[in-house]
């Protein structure tokens, strides 16, 4: 893929290709980010809500 954009096709090819790559990278990155955010939440479920019956009396 060259650097020059001459046609609409060139433009679409470049921007869409880059966008699709970024979306895939972002989605994979979100998995790690979610793990980073949640790995210390021992007493909560995956949605961040309290697990019932464990700490409430």
């Amino acid at each position, binding site marked *: 893929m060259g650097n020059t954009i001459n046609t609409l096709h060139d433009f679409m090819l*470049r*921007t869409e290709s880059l966008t699709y790559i970024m979306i895939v990278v972002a989605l994979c990155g979100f998995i790690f*980010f979610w793990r980073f955010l949640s790995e210390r939440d021992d007493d909560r479920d995956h949605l961040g809500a*309290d697990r019932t019956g464990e700490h409430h009396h």
Partner: protein
Amino acid sequence: MPVRKIVIQKPALTPFNVVAGIIVVVGLIITVIRFTQGLRATTNLSDYNPWGIWIGFDLLVGVALAAGGYVTSAACYIFGLKRFHSAVRPAILTGFLGYALVVLALHYDVGRPWRLPYPFIVQQGTTSLLFEVAACVALYLTVLFIEFTPAALEWLGLKRARSIVVKLTLVLTIFGVVLSTLHQSSLGALFLIAPSKLHPLWYSPYLALYFFVSSIVAGLSMVIFEGSLAHKHFHDKMDAEHLREADGVALGFAKAASWVLAGYFIIKVIGIAQTNAWGYLGTGYGLWFLVEMLGFVLLPCYFYAIGAREKNLKIIRRTAVWTVLGIVVNRFNVGLIAFNYHLPSSERYFPHWMEIGISVFVITIGILAYKFIVTHMPILYAHPDYDAH
């Protein structure tokens, strides 16, 4: 067991009251000038810059920061996260006051404010985004007012009316989320009509999405920010439930805000890729854009994540203030700084001191109203005569 109340008389002439009083007096004087001598006497607005800070700050920032109402009530009543229940009333109150003040500020900005109801009764103009914004803001202000009324009705002792309104909670919440989704995004979509006026780094076909997603962050951050202020200044008004849940609300909302900010950052970068605007990043505007993206999006995203992970409320509260500031910066950039970027500096807009005066006046009215309501009505505590809804 009877509860004994000890009433402590506070002095009326506190520094807060004196400053607020001066601002209100000056604001009222400017109001008289605005409505007797018109926009020219009080603003620096022109044909090039018909929207100043009364739109860029009072409306765009006001609506975004009032998003805490729909975010919190949706989390509690729609997603079933009942541990955020104690945050709903303060958030609804902030949202209601925020929208009420947006409408108040709009009366100053619109040349002929008595024509504000025209979209509904004279000419609909349904193809205009402004019609959609007007309809949604009017309806959502009504929804917020009804959502707020249980607190006022409890204060007034109107049990029957309160029980009727409480039954509408879920319907009102759903209605509120729908209306907020529509008009938060439409405020961004308004700028789609001027692609050549808005700098390419801020202009994007996804502007509507940006405004909506950032409003969620604004709402979450405002609830944390307002919660910390209430904790500091109205601690004596908070009951055990509010005090117990306050930390959990901050931690949960910080986690959510971090997650949404990460998503917001990604879609902003994708927007740059879609319009192939990378070349502008090396310019002066590009530097300012990077300050916004790295300093006010990525940085708070990281600190919210650290705060939620480490359960560090100090970091979370400071990050909330920074994020609220970031929302102000973003709305200023889109509405004022990156707008008309091609004009020579002599034609660029800078607000008149009276415009700033009215904005400060409007904020002060909001703080005074909040203070009065929180002091008198069951906002930060559950009324002992009523069940929670």
